[in-house]
């Protein structure tokens, strides 16, 4: 389970401080698939980064009794000057993964071919997303944090993500940030909306979507 306890987060802005998250409280059960909705800049990504441990909240605490992935987003997790292979090696070392089998999985999933030997900064955003996705999935986390990133790939990539994440790893928890309501509707079993720095857990995904649409 993941418990967010009274999470409050502020950023310095224009000489003062801007509160993006105000006393967020919720639990995520094993296997739960939570969609997080909200307008641009509402604090969705910040919350996901706090849950992933990338950002430290101003106040409050995240308790994790299951393994949680890093936030899978457009940026982060890679060293741009290193090649895809070197990034892969690094991740294998710190997560104690077998290099050969992980390499085989990433090769098969990301389909980057020889580009994997080039520095990550030369990749297109689609290629980056494929690599990031492959590496995240290669590690068997109990909970995956996904920030928009699924939407950048082509149809074939989206289908493979569906297969690996929602079918083969259907028992895992997922926190998903997206503006794609159809996707949220098919994938999530619960949803919450962040608006005016308040986090509202809705009774159903349909409720959350209608709340979001009314904003």
């Amino acid at each position, binding site marked *: 389970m993941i418990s967010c306890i009274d999470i409050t987060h502020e950023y310095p802005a224009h000489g003062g401080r801007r509160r993006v998250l105000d006393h967020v409280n919720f639990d995520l059960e094993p296997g739960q698939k939570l969609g997080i909705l909200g307008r641009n800049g509402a604090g969705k990504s910040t919350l996901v*980064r706090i849950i*992933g*441990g*990338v*950002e*430290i909240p101003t106040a409050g605490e995240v308790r994790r009794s299951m393994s*949680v992935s*890093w*936030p899978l987003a457009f*940026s*982060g*997790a*890679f*060293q*741009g*000057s*290193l090649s895809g292979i*070197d990034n892969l*090696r*690094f*991740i294998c*070392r*710190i*997560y*104690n993964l077998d290099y050969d089998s992980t390499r085989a999985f990433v090769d098969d999933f990301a389909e980057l071919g020889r580009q994997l030997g080039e520095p990550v900064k030369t990749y297109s955003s689609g290629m980056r997303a494929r690599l990031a996705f492959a590496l995240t999935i290669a590690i068997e986390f109990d909970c995956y944090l996904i920030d928009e990133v699924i939407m950048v790939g082509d149809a074939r990539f989206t289908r493979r993500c569906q297969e690996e994440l929602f079918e083969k790893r259907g028992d895992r928890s997922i926190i998903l940030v997206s503006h794609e309501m159809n996707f949220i509707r098919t994938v999530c079993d619960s949803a919450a909306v962040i608006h005016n720095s308040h986090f509202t857990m809705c009774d159903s995904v349909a409720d959350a979507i209608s709340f979001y649409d009314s904003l």
Partner: protein
Amino acid sequence: MTTLLQSFAVQGTVIWALILREMQTRYGRENIGFLWIVGEPIIFCAGVAILWTLIRPSHEHGLPMTAFVVTGYVPLTMWRHCVGRGVKAFEANGALLFHRHVTPLDILLARWVLEVAGTLLAGAIVAFGAIFLGFMEPPVDVGLLFLGLLFQMVFCLGCMMLIASASERSDLIEKFISAVMYLSIPLSGAFVMVSWIPEKYQWILLLSPSVQSIEMVRAGQFGPAGHAIYDVIYATWSIALLSLWGLSLTLRSRRFITVI
């Protein structure tokens, strides 16, 4: 107990991965690649040793020039490299903090191991070369020489943790650091021995932990002929205090680091 051992094992794995990564990003795979970690300080130490041997008198205050330069310059290089690599170390490695079990302390320890290993190896190579070519005598007391180096290593780590945490909290540190490092060279004890200066000013030099450890290194190299002055007790507690301060700042620095 097992969990504590396990977390040490995780930290060890992470630090090792960081060391390998640092070697790749800094030196790449061109020409001698990661061997530059030793090559760079060798160029410095050997260059300065050769230059000083050529242009300075062969003995100063009764001490042979080459050995004097090597015993001073190697610890000084270690300190300068460590402090230099500490500045903004967290920002440069921000992407790594995406992985939750990589901590700011791991990033510094990895850099410290690399710098210390690099300068020590370089120093050993230059010293062996100079001894082999007859420009330098082997050390009189190897144990004392290593004790001095050990003090210097811990002092470097302490400084590195302080500078890294301070530079993350304030941008001003970065602007001042190179000037401060340059101005503090006289206080490093690399180019002067405490016994050379008038007795009433010696206490100023002896305040510096770097002077203490370099005096120890030289006591090991020259024996009683070096007239080294040092205080192991003062060196121990001053360096311990500095390191604890640096460690406490480092452990609390995560909040100040913006991970992109």
